[in-house]
């Protein structure tokens, strides 16, 4: 049997159970909505202006660096499981791959893109 069938059923159950629990809780609890109750919560102060505050663009740069790192690292996994069966320079190949990554990190760092401020 394809192991992914198991994974599929597992994930289905893992998301169906909380889903049903939510439905259950919805009908179990009281429901008396009032305008005050459903207001946006800001510790009692009335909310002011649009929710979509301009957010710090720095978050985007982290996401950018993350994407590149994530993609490269994922491709190291197939290398990691075979490199022992292959000649020695294959290990060096992976190390070279990591070195390219380190170069990218060093560039981004020196460019100041990792600074929070």
């Amino acid at each position, binding site marked *: *049997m394809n*192991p992914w069938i*198991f*994974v599929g*059923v*597992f*994930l289905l*159950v*893992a*998301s169906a*159970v*909380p889903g049903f*629990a*939510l439905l259950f*809780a919805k009908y*179990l*609890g*009281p*429901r008396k*909505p009032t305008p005050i109750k*459903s207001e*946006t*919560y*800001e*510790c009692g102060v009335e*909310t002011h202006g649009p*929710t*979509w*505050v301009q*957010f710090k663009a720095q*978050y985007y740069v*982290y*996401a950018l660096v*993350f994407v590149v*790192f*994530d993609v490269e*690292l*994922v491709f*190291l*996994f197939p290398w*990691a*499981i*075979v*490199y*022992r*069966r292959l000649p*020695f320079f294959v*290990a060096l190949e992976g*190390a070279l791959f*990591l*070195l390219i*990554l*380190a170069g990218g*990190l060093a560039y981004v*760092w020196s460019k*100041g893109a*990792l*600074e*929070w*401020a």
Partner: protein
Amino acid sequence: MIQPGDLIASLGSWLRGFLLSLGLAPGLVSVGLGLLPAILLPLIGLMMAIPLIWLERKWVARLQDRIGPNRVGPFGIFQVFADMVKIFTKEDLIPQGADKIIFSLAPVLAIAGVVGIWAVLPFAADVYGVNLDVGVLYVIAVGTFGTLAILLAGWSSNNKYALLGAYRAVAQLITYEVPMVLTLLVPVLLAGSMGLNDIVRAQDSGWFVLLAPLAAIIFMIAAQAEVGRAPFDLLEAESELVAGFNIEYSGMKFGFFYVAEFLHSFTFGALGAAFFLGGWLGPGSERFPILGVLYFLIKSLAVYFVFVWTRGTFPRVRIDQMINLSWKLLTPTALGLVALMAVAERATQGTPPLVHALVLLAANLFVLFFALLVMRSMSRAARERLASRQAGSGSGMVAVGGSRAPAGAASALRD
């Protein structure tokens, strides 16, 4: 002498016989029995949250010189059930302007993103959901649903603080995913497989924590940040963001985020046990699967305890410190470690196990020493720059952000 029977296997064969006696087709029975764990395991995983929440609350309370829950039942063990009753019967509030479907979807995703990992956890030699050949990557993939859940929760709440909390949370999660993935490469390198059960088996000759202690340490730090607990609880910093991304959630939906957090911490404990502490390995675990499960649980709880200990002890770090710790300390260190470990591992292939272990250990210590050396010189430079700036007040702009951070990182690591 009691027959060393496998409890689960005998139960399974009994069930199979029972179902066949009911007159069901054999093919259907074996498919159904194969999928039975897929239905039971997530339920068990969710149920695990009940004792875990009680245990952790008691632990943290003792660490902080409090008593913790002690009202409902002996030692407060029924506190969680009381909470469950309360949470089930609370009103289901949806704030105005919220994106209703996404608002309700986010907690479900958060739970699925944690419980999904349990599909590949190796509880004992033959007790596991499925031994995927891409197990480690599967763990990372399922984890991305947790990130998505937080982003959706923050976005759909129509609340500024929720949105800010979600941005912070996502920045933190993706930042710490890089060193996490890097350190997960180390067990894969050493075991030559991505299946979690294969990784456990590969530790028969020595736990990976002995071969790669530095990887284990980085894994622990990154895991703590991935779960988002103190000292990395910026995503729900009460004093700054009210409650972070889940501010508008109440009742059962909040309960799911809460449960997901506790389960996530324990699940990372279980992963740490499987990757670095030999999982279910132990005397007699091959013959008695129940012993293997016991070993695995004990080791998981041990790692989990370290997480709880950290949570109960440290104050929250600043956001720039948090970001810098990952990008400027953990990631470069992990990069160097993986590269060096790969070369060292390949070079010592075929040598006696002791030599092999010692070489790998030396590689770890070398990387650790080098990282600490660089960090020390950097924080010294930062201190000097700070001192000179205070001396000649306002003598030009000085970039502070990057230099202050390693000092924070240093103190985080030293402790």
